[in-house]
Every structure is written in structure tokens, then in C-alpha cells.
């Protein structure tokens, strides 16, 4: 199952196991990425360091199942998502992933609550978990409060006039609602100043730990490294190049 990794088969499967992955973006500016072998153990905080242009977005698109490689295996929580049809991959992502972008995380015309509840429309199991103790709205408010969003900004408030820091908290609540197994954060703190960065990470770490999820954070900022269980260099995992030949 995780043949490409040197580790013996554990009770809980690796969060991610990739082997012999070859991927080329379609279109004119072909960009290719190759991963020979990569494994990520569960329930950890992992920092992936990669300068811009090192194929971060492509790597994340692959593990989230937004794109499928031309060849190779990508196992997420023991499921080879390259064998799933595209719509099943979308459903898999909805159930098992919470994703935080660098910036522009929210639909500006929606309310804060609607933005947080958005993934539940595509993930019935996450909806079940989110509504185990009450309504999904209550769970959203609980998460937002835990993440330090002012109470007057939660219910009925439009997402359009939040500050960047507030937007990132709402995005974190959206990623965490319904307790998905994997939280992927793509430079979530790069738009924040140092103090806010630290505060945001503290809250994020606490909530991720409470949910028992694995946090995969991507950044070019190596100074964050001491706060993570494991730090990996993306260019050691994957080789990327401009051109159609991976």
C-alpha cells in the first residue's frame, strides 16, 4: 500500500503517500512536477518549505485531488485518489480536506456564517459531525469564537468588510468545521504581521490538535520551522521544471 516508503505498514495509514507521480499542466505554459516517493505520517504539524515557483500550488492541487497526475499513485488516508473518477475526488476532498488559502479566502457577498458552512454542502459526513452537538450554525459560531473572531462579527455579518486577519480566521473555521482529517494551509499567514502571525498560528494549532487533524502548511518562510513537528523541503520531495517533459 505504501510500497514506496521505507516505513513498515502502520496501524493508521500515512496521511499522504505518493509514488512515481508524474504531472504536466495542460496548455501552453507547460509546467511539470515529478514525485518519486513521499510519505507523511498522521496527526502531525508539517511545514513544507518551498520558494515561489517551486511547484507548491501544483503539489497542493495534486494531494487535494483538484488535478490528477498522468501516472503514479497518490494515497490519501489509504485511498488512492488517482483511481477515483474526478467527481469522486471532489467529494473526497470535501470530506477529508480543509483548505486555507494565502489570501482572498471568502466569498465577499456571503455572510460569515455561510462562508464557514460552505463545505458542508458538499460533504454529508462532515455535516453529520458538525451537527452532532447542535445546529451547524452553532458549531460555526463556536469555531469562530474559539478562533478569536469578535462575537458581533459572526452571525449575519457580511464577509466583505472584514480585515485580512479576520478573513483568515473565518477561513480557518471553514477548514475546520466538521473535523476533516487534513488541513492544508497555503501560506496562510503571509498577509499578516509578525504578532498576528504568531497569534493566528497558536489558535490554528490548538484547534487542529483538538480535531486530531494533520496540518500541512506550505510556506517560503523558514523562520516558522521551530513551531512544527516536521519540516520538509519541497524541492527534496518533488522535482519541477518548466516544459512538458516531467
Amino acid at each position, binding site marked *: 500500500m505504501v510500497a514506496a516508503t521505507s516505513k513498515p505498514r502502520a496501524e493508521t495509514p500515512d496521511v499522504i503517500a505518493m509514488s512515481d507521480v508524474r504531472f504536466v499542466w495542460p496548455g501552453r505554459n507547460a509546467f511539470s512536477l515529478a514525485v518519486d516517493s513521499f510519505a507523511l505520517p498522521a496527526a502531525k504539524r508539517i511545514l513544507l518549505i518551498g520558494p515561489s515557483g517551486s511547484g507548491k500550488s501544483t503539489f497542493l492541487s495534486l494531494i487535494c485531488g483538484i488535478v490528477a497526475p498522468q501516472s503514479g499513485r497518490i494515497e490519501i488516508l489509504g485511498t488512492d485518489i488517482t483511481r477515483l473518477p474526478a467527481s469522486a475526488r471532489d467529494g473526497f476532498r470535501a470530506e477529508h480536506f480543509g483548505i486555507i488559502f494565502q489570501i*482572498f479566502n471568502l466569498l465577499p457577498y456571503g455572510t460569515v456564517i455561510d462562508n464557514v458552512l460552505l463545505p458542508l454542502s458538499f460533504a454529508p459526513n462532515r455535516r453529520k459531525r458538525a451537527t452532532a452537538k447542535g445546529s451547524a450554525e452553532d458549531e460555526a459560531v463556536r469555531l469562530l469564537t474559539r478562533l478569536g473572531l469578535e462575537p458581533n462579527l459572526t452571525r449575519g455579518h457580511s464577509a466583505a468588510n472584514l480585515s485580512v486577519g479576520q478573513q483568515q480566521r473565518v477561513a480557518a473555521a471553514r477548514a475546520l468545521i466538521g473535523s476533516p482529517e487534513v488541513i492544508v494551509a497555503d501560506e496562510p499567514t503571509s498577509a499578516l504581521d509578525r504578532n498576528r502571525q504568531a497569534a493566528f498560528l497558536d489558535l490554528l494549532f490548538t484547534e487542529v490538535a483538538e480535531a486530531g487533524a494533520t496540518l500541512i502548511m506550505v510556506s517560503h518562510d523558514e523562520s516558522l520551522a521551530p513551531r512544527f513537528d516536521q519540516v520538509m523541503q519541497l524541492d527534496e520531495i518533488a522535482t519541477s521544471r518548466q516544459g512538458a517533459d516531467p
Partner: protein
Amino acid sequence: MIVLRLALQSLRNRWLTATLTVFAIAVSIMLLLGVEKVRAGARQSFADTISGTDLIVGARSGSIQLLLYAVFRIGNATNNITWPSYQDIASRPEIAWVVPLSLGDSHRGFRVLGTTPDYFTHYKYRQTHGLAFASGAPFADLFDAVVGADVAAALGYKVGDRIIVSHGLGAVAFVEHDDKPFRVSGVLEKTGTPVDRTVHVSLEAIEAIHVDWQSGGRVPGQSVSADDVRRMDLKPKAITAALIGLKSRLATFRVQRSINEYRAEPLSAILPGAALQELWGLVGTAETALKAVSAMVVATALLGMVTMILTTLNERRREMAILRSVGARPRTVLGLLMAEAGVLTATGIALGVVLLYAALLVLQPYVDATYGLHLPIEPPKPAELATLATIAIAGCLAGLLPALRAYRLSLADGMTVRT
């Protein structure tokens, strides 16, 4: 459905462009349905002008021409029917009633019709409606005239007023029958037909005003006073046309054929309905052109909507990436954009229908009074509903263009949030 709600909120976020798009569609729908309403109204109005008349007889000519001058007062007769021929036809056993019509004079732009008092009982419009007097009575005296509702309204006539009839048909008369003035004996109720714009006098009166005339002018040195004329023989020499009612409709074609083959002089007998059908055949091309133009206006409005959605796509790539990241399928993105096109089209159609009926309510009395065109306010016909449904489907399909582009973009963007 949180996704659908967000889609609507997204639309509301762009309310100005969305509203303008909806209005463009609404106006095009209004035009499309309005053209159809006017077309149907005009046809109905023509068809309603003459009812209960089985045959119209005139000098030999095309049936459309005979119909137009005899009933609609459009154009002129090429020739007359002599009085003996008229009486010969009127005495046929199949004929229940016959009303002679004599045209050729006018009163301040309105046509003067010489006829008999039978006209007021036998002329029918809108299936069963007969002529009714708003005031006064049919002409009894030689120099009595009955005016239609529009004539009375336009010229301010009431019973007892004196009027002068002009020779010929122009609004500005050069030769007037001013030596023989008429008295208004009655004013007719509004009918919405050319009757409203007609001055009715007796056949004898038409004869009387022309007694001292020859070849369209007064004979110099020869003047007959109005009193002298009363003592003269005023039996008409000719009439322009005649309306005929038959005892049995089964006899229609037999009578028509015998009139068409009348030996004493060349005559034509036409069925009003058949002549109208011929007329529609003639104006059908123009109607089709009007329909085509309004259909193109609808297509233009839909194109405008597609353009509007396409221009917003770039700024909405963020929206797509977020939706994809939380697990939305590309199909969902496609569906959302098509739904947006569908909502815009449906709203435009609904608004267009509302605007049309509002316009009808406001303009109906004016159009009726000015053009004699009655536009009925009635629920949309099945054919119109089918047209609207077709447009709604076309709107959704037009939405496919931006939707497919968004689909491709969202696949190509992957996890990248574009700004």
C-alpha cells in the same frame, strides 16, 4: 441550499449590471409580445369591422380592392353599379336584405356615405353588435345626416348642427356643395370601425347635391336651389357597392357566381371573410418581417446577458477556486453559471410580461381612440407561453457559453486563487 443562496447573493452583489441586463431582456420580451398583440389586434379589428354580411357587390375589380373601399373606406371605386342592375340583384329570391352604398364625397376629411336607413339595422360589427345612436335618429329628411362617433368628437357636432358636404375626398375642399347644407339628425355610438369616421346621408341626398353638377363641377349658370331639388326625381342612377344578406348561407356561392356572371354589366361579388384572408396573405410578409425583427431584438438582449456574465468571469475566478477547494465539482460551477443565466432570463421574461400588461392598461384607451385599434387585455395565449418558454430555454443555453469557459478556467486554475 447554501450554494444557490450564495449564487443569488453573488448576483445581488452585481445588481446594477444584473438589473440592466434584466431590463434589456424585459424590453425585448415586451416588444416581441407587443408586436404580436398589435398584429392580432389589427387582424381582429379588421375582421370585426364587418359581420353578418354574406356578400359585397361592386363593379368588377379585385376582391381586396372592393373590400377596402366598400367597408374600410380605403381607396376608391373603379366604377359604379347602375341602379337597374342593383334593383335586379336586390330582387333575387335568395336575398334577405340589401344595403346600397354610394361613396365619393367628403366632409372635412371624413367620407360621406350615401345609403338607406336599412344600413343602421343591417350593418353589424364584432360578430353581433349593431349600430346604436348616441343621440338623434336615422335620417328622415332629404338633407339629414348621421355622423359617426369620431366625426362628432373631432368636429364637435351634435344633433341639429348644419354641415356642408364637399365634392371629392380631400381634407381641404375646393368645391363645396354649400348651396345644400345638411342638418345632423343623429350621432352614432363608438364602434371602433370606419363607421366612426363616416358621415351618413340618404342615397337621394347624394343625388340631390349633384343634380346641377356634371363631370365633377358645377354647371355654370345652372343652379338648383335646395327647395327646388326636393321636387325633382331623385332616384339614384348608380351606386358604388352593396352589402347583401342572404336568407340561407348555403346559397352564398350560387348567388356569388350568378353576380360574377351578370350579363348586363361587369360586376364582382365577394365574401368578406375570404377577401380578408386574401388581404392577410398580402400583408403576411410584413408581419413576418416584424416578427423577425423583434426576435432579433430578443437575441440581442440574450447576447448582452452572455457578455455581461463573461466579463464578470475573470473577477469570479476567485469564487470558482474557493468553491472548488471546498469540494464543488466543475459541474457545479457550470450549473451555477447556467442557473445565473436562467434566473436573469426568467426575471427578464416576467418583468417584460408585467411591463407589457401595464403598457396595455395605460395605452389601450388612447390606441383605441386614435387608431380605432382595440387591443384586448387577456391572459397570454398558449402559443405566446410556448414562445416565452423557448426564450427561457434559449437563455439557459446561452448561459452555457460563459459556463463552459468558467468550467475550463476552474480546471486550469487548480488550487491557485487568481485575483
